[in-house]
């Protein structure tokens, strides 16, 4: 026997009303609220962690690119024919040398570490230098040595140097470079 349509809708409405007693509503709302808060908290902490990780990773990447650059310069120093001594500059926190036909200037100032690269040219031709600042270098110093591992005399040309870098994450790096 088929029931008329209006009877079905009344019965459904009754069922719907059955589920929303005051206690049930309070419990459901509380549980759902706690659940939503938990999800939001998780989401926020995940986002924070993600951002931190991204920041660290970008810093690590910057540092690794910097190390790669310094290593490349130090592995390909122009050694022969050797430039005249007055074209070099050797100091505790500053160095001018030649690598891959470029004049490279390392300088550690109060704020950051600066690398200036310029194509080696005769006096007639001038090229624009490329200046890069690295604020993540916390400290930088250079020690110079002769071929016999002694400190060079005033007029003596160093045979190699050891560059000591300290980065913002307190990681240290030593690079030895033949000059």
């Amino acid at each position, binding site marked *: 026997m088929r029931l008329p349509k209006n009877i079905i809708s009344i019965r459904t409405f009754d*069922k*719907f009303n*059955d*589920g929303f007693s005051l206690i049930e509503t309070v419990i459901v709302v509380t549980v*759902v609220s706690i*659940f939503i808060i938990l*999800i939001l908290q998780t*989401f926020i902490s*995940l*986002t924070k962690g*993600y951002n931190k*990780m*991204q920041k660290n*990773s970008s810093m690590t*990447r910057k540092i*690794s690119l910097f190390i*790669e650059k310094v290593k*490349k310069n130090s*592995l*390909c*120093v*122009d*050694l*022969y*024919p*050797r*430039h*005249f*001594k007055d074209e070099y500059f050797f100091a505790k926190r500053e160095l001018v040398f*030649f690598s*891959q*036909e470029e004049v490279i200037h390392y300088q550690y100032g109060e704020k950051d570490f600066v690398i200036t690269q310029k194509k*080696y040219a*005769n006096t007639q031709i001038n090229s624009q230098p490329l200046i890069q600042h690295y604020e993540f270098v916390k400290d930088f110093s250079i020690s110079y040595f002769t071929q016999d591992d002694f400190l060079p005399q005033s*007029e*003596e*040309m160093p045979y190699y140097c050891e560059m000591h870098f300290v980065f913002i994450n307190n990681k240290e790096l030593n690079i030895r470079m033949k000059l």
Partner: protein
Amino acid sequence: MNKINEGFSLAIVIIIVASLSAIFSSVIFFVSSNQYRILKELAKTRNRAILYDTIGTALLEMRDDIDEDITSPFEGWFADLPSTIKEVSVTYSEESSKIDINHRDLSTLKRIKILKKNTEMEKIKNIYFFYPWQFYSLIDEQKKDWAKKVFTIYKIPNLSTINHNRLKLYMKSLNKSDYFKKMLCSKLNITNNNNGKQITKSQFENLSMIYKRGKEDNLYKEFDYKGTINLNFVTRDVFFTLFRLNGQTNPNIIKKYWNKIQQKRRIKNSIKSVNEIFSKSSQYEKYFSCNSRVFVVTVKKDNMTLSVLVNRYKNFRGIIKTEILQYWLKSNKQG
């Protein structure tokens, strides 16, 4: 009640799963992209280390247990050098058999007319070339490619042929003291170097007295006294140009000598002595020899190439030594 609860759970579950999936997939993507980058960097560093290691092994091959004074592409130590070391390809090219432009009188270049028309000899007289392009910039545009095959700046100066003005520049580049310069120049005057006479072995060995005790080896590293152009490798262009630079204008004489060299090469026979080519060998011994001193060794791995300029010399004890004078590292950025 059942129906409404089911719908509610489904919506919540879909939202949670979707948001969690988005978060985790982005984290996974970030981690994997970082890992890929790190692996790429590691591979690059490892390749570079392999290249430098291979160069070290190649240099050992160039000096170990070798007591030959001949360098030839047909036989002996040079022909026996390995073309691969631990699956890395190695190539050796000889650089000695080019004309040393850094230590010769540049005014002789007028004889072969390769300089640009407006070049003033007075201005270029004191230029010491640190890079090849500095020299090529003085050359006439049409003769640049030719000059690249004939001249080099990477040779160790020969005291029997060096121009005094260029010698001073070389010593300046080595940062030698005034005392050293004075002593060397006075000793060279004693040996009448200004007349272009061949310095003898004992005269050369006496120069080691100028060096500090324990540093005598540097004489053999920094100077040469015998001819540096190896007759086993010299090209026709270099051979003819050297004669013209030295004022020999009779082409028949040069051709006669060149034909002798060609005959030897046709039957893949090494020239073991300068006497085999030149009848009056004493005047040619300061230019030519059968041994080589400067080489370019190149190793390749994946997209990275490392070339080194090697100075191979006998020290004061007669032991063969190698010294790297220059590195060139090239990497293909796409790799």
